[in-house]
């Protein structure tokens, strides 16, 4: 029982680190896609392609660079989580009413001031929902990290499969399902709250 708790904590830790990185990188790429007109198609297509690579294949390829262990899994999760965050940042800013942007420009706000005072705050509910999708997906995908030597709840599941031990499989699988459901629930609540505040 104690070990399951450990695995859960490690699992969450991996997902958390991955999501923080992908949120930072994803928002940055989303903003670049919005700022630099001809880059938007390239960035979004690339993120789309990464998303299409089977997760096991992606992790295997990253393993060649980062070796075995948690780092590879985190790198894989970051790449995997980018698409929803980039896309939501990009469309979130893009969909702000043109007259609000015009007012901001007309008042003499610089590009960075507009980004931090107007565009990112207004796009935040949408960015957050991108992060939610990324988090919930990452909780599920990180289970296969065990195949490239990473920790987390994938380990008891994998061991359970190898030793034909249904109890062991479930001891890993149930927490993963519960985590995914719990995060989805909590973040959906937060998402609604933010949307209400920002209207």
């Amino acid at each position: 029982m104690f070990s399951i708790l450990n695995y859960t904590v490690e699992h969450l830790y991996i997902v958390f680190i991955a999501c923080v990185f992908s949120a930072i990188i994803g928002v940055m790429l989303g903003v670049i896609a919005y700022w630099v007109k001809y880059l938007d198609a390239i960035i979004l297509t690339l993120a789309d392609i990464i998303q299409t690579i089977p997760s096991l294949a992606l992790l295997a390829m990253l393993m060649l660079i980062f070796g075995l262990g948690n780092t590879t899994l985190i790198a894989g999760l970051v790449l995997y989580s980018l698409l929803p965050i980039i896309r939501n940042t990009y469309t979130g800013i893009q969909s702000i009413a043109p007259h609000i942007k015009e007012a901001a420009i007309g008042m003499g706000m610089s590009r960075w001031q507009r980004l931090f005072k107007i565009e990112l705050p207004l796009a935040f509910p949408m960015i957050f929902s991108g992060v939610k999708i990324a988090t919930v997906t990452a909780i599920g995908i990180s289970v296969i990290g065990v195949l490239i030597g990473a920790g987390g709840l994938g380990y008891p599941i994998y061991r359970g499969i190898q030793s034909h031990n249904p109890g062991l499989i479930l001891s890993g699988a149930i927490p993963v399902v519960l985590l995914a459901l719990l995060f989805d629930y909590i973040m959906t609540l937060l998402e609604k709250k933010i949307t209400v505040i920002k209207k």
Partner: protein
Amino acid sequence: MIKFSGISKSFGKSKIIDNLSFEVKEGEFIVLIGPSGCGKTTTLKMINRLIEPDNGSINIEGVDISSVDTVTLRRKIGYVIQQIGLFPNMTVEENICIVPKLLKWEKEKCIERTKELLELVSMPYDQYGKKYPTELSGGQQQRVGVLRALAAQPPIVLMDEPFGALDPLTRDALQDEVKALQQKLNKTIIFVTHDMDEALKMADTIIFMDKGKILQMASPEEMLRKPASDIIREFMGKRIAYGNSQDLSAEAFMNTNVVKTTENKQTFECLELMKRKKVNSIIVTNNNNEFRGIITIEDLKKRGKIEGPIGNIVNEDAELIHKDIAAKEAFERLIETKRDYLIVVDDEKQIIGIINKTSMVKALADALWGDLA
């Protein structure tokens, strides 16, 4: 203050602004008006460089604005747009304080300024300062929009159809408030509208544009009196005919629907005519359609059954006026002579109409409420 010199701008193949030159004096309320696509909004947006001209230069206080950094320039020019454009993620206070904060004003000074401004439009700070734009009515939102533009005390304020989306009552109130603010604070305001009533009400000077050119730049008074082209006249609509009431002639408002007969008609015929036309007086003319006199039903009754031509019994005592006489003079004569009517004649002394108290009342009503007919 602001000087346009030979400004042109094309979007693709269509020329939006065509060699535009004009000057705006300090403290002036300028209204740009014209049919849609005339280039008025483009002209406005060139002042804060939201649109850059292809040719020509714009000077503000002697400085060519193309040499000024856009961000610095815009912070010195207030900007109000039709869709208001308040930032929904900021409170009323934060919205108003945007430019002062960009200019690094002290926090206390920002709050002080917000209070002062909200006071100007009767929106107490304690009640509204911490509210979000969505909690305000449309009129209140645009008031905040105007205050936001005024916050950093810019000498120039640009307004792009600021009241276009408001209901008529709110629009009217805001027009009064903005006009009062402008006079009080001595701002130079450039205001775009397509509503002539608004232009006449607000402007010191109206610039009427069409197809990227200025058709006329004049005070409201002068534009009403002497519109420079048919398009302007059309835009002014009914205001114009009665606006220049000084130039209005007797002919313009006389009653042309008069019953006339010739002097050799028999009395009985005249009575029949009165009955048929439902009038109680007839103008009698000679064979050349010149005035001979007037006959009323009372005259006929008084004389009983008189045979013979009507010419023998007409009342020749009447006031004749020429059709080109000024309306004002005609009215004065009507009142002075205490007559019921004046006969309007043309150069050949032909009767073309009458002026009575009814036509006077109608002319007054038209001037007040537009053409009723």
